[in-house]
């Protein structure tokens, strides 16, 4: 009996103990859970918030849209039929016919043609003239004027009496041909995009052509340098100021919608070419081979100096007067023939002309010889090179075409248009690549700070790009070029902003080295007690299951 009572008492004690024990354990569990909850609900967001880098909103969707951009170019073409090319019945049938007053004086016609040719840039006017017209020589079918006009001789088979449909069908391929010469062709656009898009190479020459011109830039520096390696023998005088005014400035004024140009000139003494020319005894002259031309530029380049005051690309034009001991000097092309102009150009760099002054040596003259350089001869070569390097394409027109001589500016309106077409396309492509690669970079590296000004630049670049594309589609070439330039400026500004570099090289392992001493000792007990709680809960559930069974 006593034993039983003792037993009971013992059980009660055990129960009390067990109760106390289990409540203590529950309290511990609760404490662990609440600490874990605190860490997750307060600590982690706080840490996240305080260590977050500022990233302004970027128009990612629009940028992605730009990445798969489809360009559509359109050019306005006006086709004007001269009297005698279309019958009155045909006129009546044309829905968009505007008939002009019939009675034009002869001299007024010239004026009206001029007025008509004041068409906005990018557009073309094609005048169709009768077969019998004596304006064009016999074998010439198309005449391309200085402005945005062309004359098209209507074919002999298009006699009066054909329907309008036939007439238009007959004209369309020829208009297209004119358009390809005067505004843009597939090749131009391919060349403009060649740096961005990989095309299957058609032939080596076209690639070389597309690599020759400078890339589109908002400004160019043009530097003329006179290299005088032998000031002891030659005292050179060049009237560069006058020559620039006469020959170069008109072209640059004409090109001013495309880019800003600045002109400089300098005289460099003791500037040598990097190659020793070979002496050809049969001609008693020194020869520079085409293979060695590649090595000519480097030693000179060190002397040229870059423009410290701007970062625009520099077009160098060097006039080299060989020293008295290596004179005369001639450049030979790959076929060992003398180059007429004695000049060559280097793609995307500039041009070099060798100017021999042997004519000034006379028997008995004592050195130094005073030499006046014939600037007309020199500038003729440099101007042609400048046109090439700026990408004013001179694709040979088909044989039945005749091109008007360019005026005093050395550049016809339609040539400017051609350049503007390819420049706009190139600008759009460049700005698009810049913006998309910037977006990609920012997407990949998460801890770069994106400031508001960068976001703003990106947005404005995207807006300008969209506007440029829209204008290209409508055919407003001037606006398209303007917008594409703005796009390029804004995108470059965003891409090269120094603030993007700040955190770029803050490595992750160092971050963890800082975090580990704090986070490891804090998280391990929390994790362990959570694991313990989970395993206990599982065990109890299993026990309950066993009891039920």
């Amino acid at each position, binding site marked *: 009996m006593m034993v039983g009572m003792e037993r009971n008492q013992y059980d009660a004690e055990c129960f009390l103990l067990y109760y*106390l*024990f289990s409540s*203590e*354990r529950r309290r*511990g569990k609760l404490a*662990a859970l609440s*600490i874990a909850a605190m860490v997750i609900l307060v600590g982690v967001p706080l840490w996240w918030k305080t260590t977050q880098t500022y990233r302004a909103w970027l128009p990612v969707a629009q940028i992605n849209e730009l990445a798969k951009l489809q360009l559509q170019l359109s050019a306005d*073409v006006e*086709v004007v039929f*001269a*009297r005698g090319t279309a019958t009155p019945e045909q*006129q009546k049938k044309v829905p*968009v*016919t*505007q008939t*002009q007053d*019939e009675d*034009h004086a002869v001299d007024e*016609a*010239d004026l*009206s043609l001029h007025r008509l040719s004041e068409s906005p840039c990018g557009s073309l006017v094609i005048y169709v003239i009768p077969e019998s017209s004596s*304006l*064009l020589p016999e074998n*010439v079918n198309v005449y391309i004027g200085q402005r945005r006009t062309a*004359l098209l001789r209507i074919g002999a088979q298009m006699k009066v009496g054909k329907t309008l449909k036939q007439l*238009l069908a007959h004209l369309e391929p020829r208009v297209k041909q004119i358009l390809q010469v005067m505004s843009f062709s597939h090749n131009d656009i391919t060349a403009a995009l060649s740096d961005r898009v990989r095309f299957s190479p058609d032939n080596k020459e076209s690639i070389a052509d597309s690599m020759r011109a400078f890339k589109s830039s908002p400004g160019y520096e043009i530097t003329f340098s006179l290299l005088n390696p032998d000031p*002891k023998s030659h005292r050179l*005088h060049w*009237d560069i*100021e*006058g020559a620039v005014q*006469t*020959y170069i400035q008109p072209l640059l004024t004409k090109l001013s919608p495309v880019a800003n140009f*600045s*002109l*400089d*000139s*300098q005289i460099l003494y*003791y500037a040598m070419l990097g190659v020793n020319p070979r002496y050809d005894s049969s001609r008693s002259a020194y020869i520079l081979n085409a293979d060695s031309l590649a090595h000519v530029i480097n030693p000179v380049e060190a002397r040229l*100096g870059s*423009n*410290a*005051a701007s970062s625009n690309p520099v077009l160098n034009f060097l006039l080299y007067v060989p020293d008295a001991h290596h004179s005369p000097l001639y450049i030979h092309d790959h076929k060992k023939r003398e180059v007429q102009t004695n000049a060559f150009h280097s793609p995307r760099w500039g041009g070099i002309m060798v100017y021999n002054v042997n004519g000034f040596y006379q028997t008995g003259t004592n050195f130094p010889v005073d030499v*006046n*350089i014939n600037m*007309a001869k020199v500038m*003729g070569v440099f101007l*042609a090179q400048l046109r090439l390097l700026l990408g004013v394409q001179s694709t040979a027109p088909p044989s039945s075409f*005749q091109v*008007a*001589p360019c*005026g005093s500016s*050395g550049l016809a309106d339609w040539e400017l248009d051609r350049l503007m077409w390819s420049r706009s396309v190139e600008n759009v492509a460049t700005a698009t690549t810049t913006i998309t690669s910037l977006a990609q970079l920012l997407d990949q590296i998460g801890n770069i700070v994106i400031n508001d000004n960068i976001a703003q630049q990106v947005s404005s670049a995207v807006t300008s790009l969209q506007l440029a594309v829209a204008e290209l589609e409508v*055919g407003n070439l001037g606006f398209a070029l303007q917008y594409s330039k703005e796009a390029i400026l804004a995108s470059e500004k965003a891409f090269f902003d120094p603030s993007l570099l700040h955190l770029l090289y803050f490595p992750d392992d160092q971050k963890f*080295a800082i975090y580990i001493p*704090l986070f*490891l*000792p*804090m998280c391990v*007990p929390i994790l362990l007690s959570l694991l313990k709680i989970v395993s206990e809960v599982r065990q109890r559930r299993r026990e309950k299951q066993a009891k039920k069974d």
Partner: protein
Amino acid sequence: MWIGFSLLMPDCFSLSFLKDLHWCGVCMSVAPPHPHTNTDSFQEELVVRPLHSGDIYASFQFRTVWEADFSRGNKVSHYQLFPKSLGQVISKFSVRELHISFTQGYWRTMQWGQPFLPSPPGAELWVWFQDSVTDVDGTWKELTNVLSGIFCASLNFIDSTNTVQPSAAFKPLGVGNVTDHRFLRYATLPREIVCTENLTPWKKLLPCGSKAGLAVLLKSEKLFHSSFHSQAVHIRPICQDQRCKSTSLELRQTLNAVFDLHTSGQAKREWSLFKMFSRTLTEACPLASSSKIYIDITDNSQGEQFELSPASSLLSQAVVLGDRRTFSVYDLTDQATFGSTRSLNLLIRDMLRPLLHAERYVAGYGLQTGEIHTVMYNHHPYRSFPVLLLDSVPWYLRLYIHTLTVTSKGKENKPSYIHYQPSKDRLRPHLLEMLVQLPPNSATEVTVEFERALLKWTEYTPDPNHGFYVGSSVISSLVPSTVATNTSITQEQPLFSSFFPCKEELSYFVRVYTEPLLVNLPTPDFSMPYNVICLTCTVVAVGYGSLYNLLTRSFQIEEPSPGLAKRIANVIRRMRGVPPL
């Protein structure tokens, strides 16, 4: 591609302009070339002076004068002798005057006398802008960056913390009346190390490069194997003629070197151009209008000290720095100069003690406070003269300006003019300018106490224990001269004696630079931030761990376990079938 057709029907028109149909790539009218008059001129000059310490002082000057007027905003872009890179910089940033010098080593005034053109150790740049510049600070910042590219130097480290606008010490050296010091910026980089990469771009600015003329001698391995090397570029507007109706731009490139031939000359006291430069001269620069070598033979008028070979009959006298010196002149444009031998051998004797001389040092102990002492000596036996002292001290030395004392001969010497601009932390340095009268034959000491500031840990240089440089003080003065100086501009003078404009006959302008100071700042242990993070994290973790333990651990009373004897007894009882204890 979209092609719009719209049909127009004009009348027949005559096309008279279609007469000559031919394609030409280039169209032009031929303009007769007319000879262009060369408006630039170039001079070169080398002065060799034996110093009384036994060293040889060689000073090169190259002067290009360009008759182009920048002052009215003209755009000039055609360059002949003037270097294009500098011309573009001057026109882009509207610079009126530009003075830049790079110096390796310290000029020992007491041993070597006055240099022709003084310069402080390291790099020094001071620029007067045109008064048309609106944002001077922005232009200055851009200009320093561009110059740093041109001269391959770390001038891009010039910022607001080391730039000052001296009110009196740096006046324009060229023509022009603008003395508003808002358009002046002055900065020094005493830490700058000058080497070959600075010499090459400097030589490139010369019209003949290093291909002909005196510049042939400038071989870097010899020039930098010297006790002192200083190269400078000075650009300023000067008068074209006496009436000064129009100005031209003068570019002076100077290079000074002091060769220690005692140590390198195998104890022989003789030298030659070849020994100094390991080159000899063969021709003058063909573009130079004058090309001369001057050898100072003042102490050797009778040939008793040394002998020059080949001898030159041409003698010239010039008043340099208040002293009448005699020079033996070699004209390189004259073919007769290049005789059989081109080496010159000579021995050396005493020379004049400089009248003005200064030195500077830091006193004090510990890393908290210190004292800057600047001592200026007037060695003139009976004349006192005023000097203008300019001090630019970085912000991390906090000057206690109330402790500024100026004493000469034990008595207080009150400056007649003080211009003080206090520093702003991380923005601008202290600027102190004073006009002090130096009594004859005395040493005047200027002392000021300072406290060292604590820098942020990212503001320390990569080698903080080396110390921090404080630029040289600049002392400018008109020193009374015993010899009358020639003040007329018209008479042709050697280049070395004509740099500073001289208006009085009986005094000459001298600028003296003191040594730069090297000051130690309290330097922290740079692994400290990480250590601190680790330590605090550990402390936090320990505290947190015990707290966590206390909060989550469940406590239970442990049942006392029975003793070993009892357990054995229980085992035995179980075997016997008796209930355990």
